[in-house]
């Protein structure tokens, strides 16, 4: 007589539901999974909200006349009011980008002092001021129709902010740390406290336990992605290139990313039965990727010899993929190299996990 093993659907849902519930009550999960990424977004979201801004020092007695009025009305110019000597010190130390000397007694004399140290900002100061001077000269001399006209045409482009670069990287980081640290810690804890042993005395298979745990992580990861995206959109005006399709694609990619990264969590969980050895191994896996693989700055800004290596990191594949979705507005058909990279890493991770993982 051949007996079938009992259905695993109810145990699977039971494990998933109750481990999710336990996770959401766990302070470490809530802090590292939710509070941490939100803090990152909150802090870095405040950076670089507008484009280039220039600070120009003008002493108090010079703050009159038509030149001053036009310049002070320019949005991207910040006026700093101090005495001449203080302004010179600020310019030398790089705290302001230029000093403007306006001889308000006669309008004919405008002098700019710039620093050699920061050529980019200095040339911005020069071009803004000379633009203002030219415009006023034309007005004063009454030329309404100058022979050479300079016209700037603006095309409607995407307003690209730092948050648009930064937010996808935070989704990748939150995903990686949940998949690796949280999974490894969770499993080792259950092993060590003999919770797993007690569950094994019930008609529940090992695969059911792992799958149930993964389902719980899936819900957590989707909630993380939702919260990070929501905060980006509603608080920091994160740009959704294709609206809802972008959101949907980010969710699908998060599921793919979790599947790939979970293998690393299982691998780390198998290396040791001691939480104290888990922590450094998990951090060794996450932190370097967090620093170089495009979370805070583009991989292109690394030295050129490092880029090919860094681009092969698991998190780099994910970050490149998610930015192609959120910045370039691409669909999955354009992400094949990244998806292939993630698949290869996943295969390596699950094979390694199969070698290391032990139930006891």
């Amino acid at each position, binding site marked *: 007589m051949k*007996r079938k093993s009992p259905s695993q659907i109810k145990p699977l849902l039971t494990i998933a539901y109750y481990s999710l519930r336990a996770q959401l009550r766990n302070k470490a999960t809530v802090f590292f999974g939710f509070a941490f990424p939100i803090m990152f977004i909150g802090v870095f979201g405040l950076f670089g909200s507008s484009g280039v801004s220039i600070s120009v020092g003008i002493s108090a007695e010079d703050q009159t006349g038509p030149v001053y009025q036009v310049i002070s009305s320019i949005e991207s110019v910040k006026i700093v009011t101090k005495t001449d000597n203080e302004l010179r010190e600020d310019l030398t130390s790089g705290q302001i980008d230029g000093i403007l000397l306006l001889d308000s007694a006669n309008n004919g004399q405008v002098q700019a002092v710039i620093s050699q140290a920061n050529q980019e900002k200095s040339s911005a100061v020069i071009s803004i001021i000379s633009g203002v001077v030219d415009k006023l000269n034309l007005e004063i001399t009454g030329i309404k129709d100058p022979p050479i006209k300079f016209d700037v045409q603006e095309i409607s482009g995407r307003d690209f902010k730092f948050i648009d670069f930064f937010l996808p990287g935070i989704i990748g980081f939150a995903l990686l740390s949940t998949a690796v640290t949280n999974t490894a810690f969770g499993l080792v804890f*259950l092993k060590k406290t003999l919770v797993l042993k007690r569950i*094994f*005395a*019930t*008609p529940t298979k090992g695969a059911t336990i792992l799958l149930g745990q993964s389902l719980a992580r899936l819900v957590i990861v989707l909630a993380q992605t939702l919260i990070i995206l929501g905060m980006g959109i509603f608080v920091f005006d994160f740009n959704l290139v294709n609206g809802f399709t972008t959101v949907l694609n980010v969710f699908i990619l998060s599921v793919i990313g979790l599947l790939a990264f979970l293998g690393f969590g299982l691998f780390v969980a198998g290396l040791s039965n001691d939480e104290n050895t888990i922590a450094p191994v998990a951090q060794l896996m996450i932190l370097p990727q967090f620093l170089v693989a495009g979370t805070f700055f583009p991989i292109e800004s690394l030295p050129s010899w490092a880029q090919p290596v860094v681009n092969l990191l698991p998190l780099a594949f994910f970050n490149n993929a998610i930015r192609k979705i959120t910045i370039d507005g691409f669909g999955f058909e354009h992400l094949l190299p990244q998806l292939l990279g993630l698949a290869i890493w996943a295969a390596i991770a699950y094979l390694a996990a199969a070698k290391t993982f032990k139930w006891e």
Partner: protein
Amino acid sequence: MPSQPIILVQNLTKKYQETTAVDNISFEVKSGEIFGLLGPNGAGKTTTLEIIETLRESTSGKITVDGIDIFEHPWDVKSRIGVQLQSAGFYPDLNLIELLKMFAGLYQINIKNPAEILKKFSLEDKRKSFWNKLSGGQKQRFSLATTLIHNPKIIFLDEPTTGLDPQARANLWDEISKMHSEGRTIVLTTHYMEEAEKLCDRVAIMDKGKIIKTGTPHQLIDDLLDSGFKKPQEVKQADLEDVFLSLTGRNLRER
């Protein structure tokens, strides 16, 4: 007295690399009895129990539980037996009600009123408590609640009273007697001889992986007396445990 064997262990051996934890033992447990595996620490009691519970593999031997070959059909065995492990843990972030519901799900049964189950084990005030916050006796009682949740007719208890105070131990003995009176077969391990004498219908004494003697507690005592053994001191009608319990009462502490 029921006499049908419900657990049959034949020539069971368990070897770890160098050591032999269980050395070719055979015994049977009759339906409806309380069977005790006695022995000092390291005798192989827990290993034997965990093999029957399908938690460990054996090196050789044959075991049937309720007519089922446990190595062929471990899944059938798991849902028929109730297990209390010597040391087991429960999710620390779930309260007792949630844990009971979780075990109901794992045993694939529905429980209508988990609070009722807690009440049976005098844990009704602890429904929102977490496992880690329970006292030793409460932990054992809760563990018993999960053991019985799917109403199994065969129960395995591994050192159920180790580390408990006398009140909690007396209470647990009552629970075990109650389970027995409900017609369940109980296999327990212990190294407390008074516990075995009080609870067990039959015992097997294990040492160094072997069963050295099997029988009812009375039989074993009579055999010893027949061999000319005499206790060197006068036997009183009460012992210190009786004194302790009569002074401090039988009421459970830490409810």
